[in-house]
């Protein structure tokens, strides 16, 4: 388990309303609190049920009580549940040292579906994210969740991969115990399985150990 490399360590989680930002930010927030860190989370959830942009900003510090808002250009990690949203957050919070983990499955905005505007080419989008990140990881968390028969756990797959990347001071056990306290019994097993699959994401270990 890592110690945080910056004080405060700023994590931005972003996605589309309904993808489950809040579950991730609450699990991380409560778990780091148990580890003795100070933590604040700011949720922007105005569009949560209407397919708009949602973000959570988590700030973790050994001692400092930070404000909830992350200043421009000050993110250390961006976790994107949707690739366009990762890029959007990099424009506001990115910097040469930022790390990103992105679910590659796009969710098209209404205006794209209606063909008024074009969703960017996925490879161009990945290149843009990579060029604005110190390191960028891409995973197909949505496919893994679909294979589990519950696309709703895409967020937990990504949370598993985030833990495996060893950037935030938490272990898989820490998150597991958070999920156990948070989730109803009938939802728990699929979430734990999603966490495991995300954690054991092929390639991620190698990439981390041999940067």
């Amino acid at each position, binding site marked *: 388990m890592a110690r945080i490399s910056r004080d405060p360590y700023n994590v931005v989680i972003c996605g589309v309303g309904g993808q489950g930002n809040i579950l991730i930010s609450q699990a991380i927030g409560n778990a780091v609190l148990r580890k003795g860190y100070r933590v604040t989370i700011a949720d922007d959830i105005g569009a949560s049920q209407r397919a708009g942009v949602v973000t959570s900003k988590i700030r973790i510090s050994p001692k400092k009580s930070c404000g*909830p808002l992350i200043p421009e250009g000050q993110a250390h990690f961006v976790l994107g549940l949707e690739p366009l949203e990762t890029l959007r957050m990099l424009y506001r919070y990115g910097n040469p040292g930022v790390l990103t983990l992105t679910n590659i499955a796009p969710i098209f905005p209404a205006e794209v579906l209606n063909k008024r505007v074009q969703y960017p080419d996925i490879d161009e989008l990945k290149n843009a994210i990579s060029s604005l990140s110190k390191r960028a990881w891409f995973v197909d968390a949505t496919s893994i969740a679909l294979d589990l028969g519950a696309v709703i756990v895409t967020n937990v797959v990504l949370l598993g991969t985030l833990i495996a990347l060893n950037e935030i001071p938490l272990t898989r056990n820490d998150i597991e115990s958070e999920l156990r306290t948070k989730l109803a019994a009938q939802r728990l097993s699929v979430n734990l399985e999603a966490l495991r699959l995300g954690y054991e994401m092929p390639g991620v270990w190698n990439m981390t150990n041999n940067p």
Partner: protein
Amino acid sequence: MSNRLVFHASRQVLLSGNEAIARGALEAGIQFCTGYPGTPSSEILENIAAVAKERGIYAEWSINEKVAVESAAAASLAGLRSLVTMKNAGMNVASDFLMHHNLSGIGSRGGGMVVVVCDDPGGHSSSDEQDTRWLARSANVPLLVPDSPQDARDLVKWAFEISETFRSYCILRSYTSLSHSYGVVKIDELPYPESRKATYDISETITPETPYIVALHEKAHMRSENTRELFETSGFNCYEGTERAELLIICCGSGSPCSRDAVDILGVEDVVGILKIDTVWPLPKRLVEEHMYRSCAQHVLVVEETDPFLELHVKEVVADSSKLAGKVRVLGRGSGHIPHCGELTPDSVIKALTSILRRKYTPRESGYIQKMENLGGNMLVNRDATWCPGCPHRASFWCLKSAFGQDGRECLAIGDVGCYTLDIWPAGYHVTKLVHGMGTGLGMGSGFGKLDGFGFDQPVVSVCGDSTFFHSSIPALINAIHNKANMVAIVLDNGATAMTGFQPHPGTDVNALGDSTPAVDIADFCRSLGCEVMVRDPFDVEETITCILKLLKNRGGVKVLVLRRMCELIRMRQVKLQPYRMRVDDERCKGQKCSYCTDVFACPGLTISGKTGKAKIVEGICAGCGLCVDVCPSKAIIREQNSGKNIQRPI
């Protein structure tokens, strides 16, 4: 969420500002809680209602904020501690009562009354950026502004003591970046549930009526001066930083975390001191003067959200002080160092500090900015909120749009506040031309409906939701009927206050405590007023359009159309089954040449396939509502009864 509020005591927990306010109120032993839903305030009462029964508390979603404060005042006057919650705009509705109750007070035996107002700087979910602090100044009642969830929990408890000490309600102002942010909060054990008997001592008459008004005004002024004395020594106001400072920041609310972050990032702790004021009104003037004098700072920067409230009063302190006059310059909005509008961010304070202290700060190196510019912003496609797939409002506004088109005249639709306001957003149909505050649709419609004598010949349609109808549309409707205005009033009845999280209202058969209660039927109610009332399901598209056309044609008085269909999100929670499986008949679909379903109807569940060039159902987004079948001009979209299995929905 509620279990966090009740079971973990005497330890540190992660609570949102709203949860912390609820927790503080529970620790203060409240027995009565009212409010009207409104972002960002709704979670306070929701959390209290969830534990109300086990804590012996009465909680209600009131019909509007005015009734909410009046009910809370009743409980307070009967000796109970009461809490009332609302958003910024709600305070306007409540202010009529609050501007009288400030003078009459809570009586000699009253329980503490705390009014929590959550402002929304930046207008994330509001049609204004108004600043509640002016009401506290205007009413001359105590006002506390917390800067963190911990502070919020602590201040709510203290607010009840202040209210009881000074026999007046006390306002606690929150704001989006507090209400919706989580922080570590140390909490105490909850007290044993209160069992105080409610009673009103009829030997006491409490009113600010004419015979008493000037004396009571004088008393309120004295009360305010006494409150100021208490605030002068309050530990909630604190100074951080060096003894002598080049620059003194005076801040409140979100101004303090933004200032602390800015000072930390710039590393200017050695020259900048921060005075945080939680007791914003009445302002502890001596405390402010002392810190300005002691720090020897030539510049004072006032950091606050949204208006220059503290700033003007700090300037008053300087103007009245013989020690400070001419020695210190007060900066902030007046000097242009802090932006006049929008949500306050650490970045705005950083910018102000670098300018005042002549420091250099670049958040990211130029090479990175260059990379962003090279990429261009084209890739950042907007993601505007829109009606959910299956939303009855899409159907209602589709019918309105079609009916207006067929009618051919310049029909004027006046909207109101709710999910249906999305009609004016980029992804909406733009049928609605005027939207203001709650209940204003029918009120303005009543006025437009009386312009016949001035040559006005456009049909007038006012649209409101069910919760909005009860909140403040009813007086406007009766006004229109009484004055024979020409107006079609459309009530979009989706069975909940959907925009803010499905809170019950008088039209639902359940209340905030989860108990069943008789529902007021909007159509029956309107009929009882003597006007023509029609009820339609907006998913019966042809029938609804015909009905609207008929109502538009008959000019003469008020006609009500109730478009009734349950919010799709609630329906899915209850039924858990999509009604139809949808598919497109590629033979019939004219594809890109037509694009009516995607370009005009614009449901996110439809797109044009890149491969076939034909319309395509977006699996995972489509809610299977079947509405598009009636929209497609080629009858190419087909709905089949769902056999019982849902398609997985990613959102």
